[in-house]
């Protein structure tokens, strides 16, 4: 809060002190979200935390440090929060002014797009993405190059579309927001390259209305890029044209599902449709449509600039590159981080996250959002990649990572995610509409100490049916938090249903039933 005021105050103070060689800049996310507002002095590798407008002491420290008398601040060199990260997507986050295209251009921005339209064939671009091994960062990890090639091969006599899915909605996930607010041009550049590769001349960014700053900066970035000729009629002076428009979501989580997203962009009720046909063949207004997530697009310009080989040298055998996570929950350093694929959960939670608060014990880490799962202490040394997470009963998801300590009740965690799913279910198909509600009621009964062994059996049976029978990913994934907590924390469920005891002493046994059908 108050970063703009901090910027203004600091600029005035720096000017008053006569520090001519210091430039004060507004930049995007510096990573340590919980400690904001943040001021970084890159040359001295020092970060000042909590420098809010009321904290004049922090500003004095900064000015003093700038004058050559280091005072306060957090040294960034050697701090594992910074040194363990590898920045590809977030390379410019916290370095460039998100509202300035000049800043972006100065840092090498739009060079990849200019190179692509001037000297590469669409097929070469797609091949480069295929070779890089990039996989969809929205959750499922579908090979991006394969998706591009599929759309490229569709005929599309009435045109094709590129859509950026910026409807980030998982509880505890805020990475895409950070990318859009920090380097909106990088996302647009990725989209334009994709448009060139698949033969699309129109693009949409579907951004949720809950992210007004991201939408504002994207809109500004689109205008700037059009003025400079990187978007619009003649991209970088060539015959390739690419127009981008913003579309705002209206608060429905399910609109992150691609067929629902398409319906929403078209102005219809945002409900999913059975696939096939896939959007690659029949998407927006029936035309071939490429849908990728914000982070996926932001990975494209670095891949083109530095080459597929460089990109595929990062990460594991089947999961290439880096992944941006929003690290939240019971860790010291909460914020947006980017790590190479294959880093272990332990390294993320304890090295980068700085571990838990004193006296608290690690219990689980939740990844993958409402369709993901909770991973216990035994799995801390598991590498974080698509296959390992799925095998362990969770998923990569879009990149939310919530750390839980021993005061957390896992039945309550499952109930929280089920409550989310039942409220976000669109209501189209029966298993998801009724099943998520019934599972939530069974879990609610458990956390009130009113459940029996029979209810637990019922929960497992409904969860299996909802997973197999639901129409879209929301319903198919909704039982996952139940399955993963049952897999690793069954004892806690048994304590709730057999002894009516909550081992974490979180649940209020004997609490009255929460009334209510329908959206709470």
């Amino acid at each position, binding site marked *: 809060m108050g970063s703009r005021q901090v910027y203004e105050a600091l600029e005035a103070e720096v000017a008053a002190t006569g520090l001519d060689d210091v430039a004060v800049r507004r930049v995007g996310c510096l990573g340590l979200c919980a400690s904001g507002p943040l001021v970084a002095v890159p040359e001295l590798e020092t970060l000042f935390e909590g420098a809010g407008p009321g904290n004049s002491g922090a500003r004095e420290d900064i000015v003093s440090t700038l004058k050559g008398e280091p005072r306060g601040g957090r040294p960034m060199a050697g701090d594992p929060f910074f040194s363990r990260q590898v920045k590809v997507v977030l390379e410019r986050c916290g370095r460039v002014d998100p509202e300035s295209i000049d800043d972006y251009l100065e840092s090498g921005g739009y060079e990849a797009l200019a190179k692509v339209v001037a000297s590469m064939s669409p097929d070469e671009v797609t091949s480069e993405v295929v070779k890089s091994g990039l996989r969809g960062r929205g959750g499922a990890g579908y090979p991006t190059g394969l998706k591009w090639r599929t759309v490229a091969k569709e005929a599309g006599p009435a045109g094709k579309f590129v859509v950026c899915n910026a409807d980030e909605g998982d509880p505890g996930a805020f990475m895409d927001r950070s990318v859009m607010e920090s380097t909106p041009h990088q996302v647009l550049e990725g989209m334009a390259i994709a448009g060139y590769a698949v033969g699309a001349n129109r693009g949409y960014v579907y951004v949720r209305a809950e992210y007004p700053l991201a939408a504002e900066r994207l809109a500004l970035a689109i205008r700037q890029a059009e003025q400079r000729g990187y978007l619009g009629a003649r991209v970088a002076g060539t015959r390739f044209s690419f127009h981008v428009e913003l579309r705002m979501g209206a608060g429905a989580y399910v609109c992150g599902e691609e067929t629902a997203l398409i319906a929403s962009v078209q102005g219809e*009720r945002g409900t999913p449709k*059975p696939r096939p046909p896939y959007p690659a063949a029949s998407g927006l207004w029936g035309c071939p449509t490429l849908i990728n997530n914000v982070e996926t697009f932001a990975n494209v310009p670095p891949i083109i600039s530095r080459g597929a080989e460089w990109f595929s040298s990062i990460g594991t055998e089947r999961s290439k590159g880096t992944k941006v996570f929003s690290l939240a929950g019971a860790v010291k350093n909460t914020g947006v981080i980017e790590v190479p694929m294959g880093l272990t959960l332990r390294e993320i939670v304890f090295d980068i996250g700085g571990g838990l608060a004193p006296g608290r014990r690690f219990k689980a880490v939740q990844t993958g959002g409402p369709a993901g799962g909770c991973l216990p202490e035994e799995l801390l040394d598991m590498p974080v990649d698509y296959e390992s997470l799925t095998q362990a009963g969770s998923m990569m998801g879009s990149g939310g990572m919530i750390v839980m300590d021993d005061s957390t009740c896992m039945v309550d965690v499952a109930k929280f995610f089920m409550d989310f799913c039942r409220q976000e279910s669109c209501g*189209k198909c029966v*298993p998801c509409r*009724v*099943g998520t509600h*019934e599972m939530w009621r069974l879990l609610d009964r458990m956390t009130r100490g009113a459940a029996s062994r029979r209810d637990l059996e019922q929960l497992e049976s*409904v969860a299996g049916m909802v997973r197999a029978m639901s129409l879209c990913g929301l319903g198919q994934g909704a039982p996952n938090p139940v399955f993963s907590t049952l897999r690793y924390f069954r004892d806690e469920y048994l304590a709730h249903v057999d002894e009516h005891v909550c081992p974490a002493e979180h649940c209020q046994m004997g609490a009255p039933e929460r009334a209510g059908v*329908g*959206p709470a």
Partner: protein
Amino acid sequence: MSEVRTLQIDGKDVAGRSDETILSVAQENEIHIPTLCHLEGLSDVGACRLCVVEVEGAPKLLPACTTRVDEGMKVTTTSERLVSYRRRVVEMLFVERNHICAVCVANNNCELQAQARDLGLDHFELPLMHPALPVDASHERFVMDHNRCILCTRCVRVCDEVEQAHTWDVAGRGAGARIVSDLGTPWGSSSTCTSCGKCVQVCPTGALFEKGRSISEPKARRPYLPYLVRVKGRER
């Protein structure tokens, strides 16, 4: 440009066109697949999930009403797992709203009731939700009882696709989803409803009914269906 595809449904060799669904090819060959939201002559939405089938090699169950046939496909329409899942779908619909057959205008004339009977649903294991929902009796000839509605959206589709009035649509989400007329105003004050009654005829339950009908009174519903199909066919 449809081509002929040969496939197997329940071990039986059958042939279909590439633009046909598993459901239509199965029906043509007198293989029964239960359906609820599907209605011949209307577009398919794959929402009720009753018609899901197993397709060899497919990792997920697929709805027969929207999945096109493919060469060499091996489809299983009935298995222990499928029957138990389908029974659960019908159970979910019963517990979701108030479906007390004995006092329902559609008793013995109800597709939900028929599915429950066919699938052997004789008791409910899930807790009842049974919210008290409003009944819209503002229309001079028809009534919309939300307590009996299963959100199959047949009424929405017939009104949009055949009558082309688009009086009905869905509002809200999850368990709070409701069929609404004209952006949520009472049906009787609708400026788009033509009072054609098609929605009443296609409703599988007692949610939409004609005023003056008593409990269990049989409805002349069936003759309307071929009519609707013919209308659709002529438009194509």
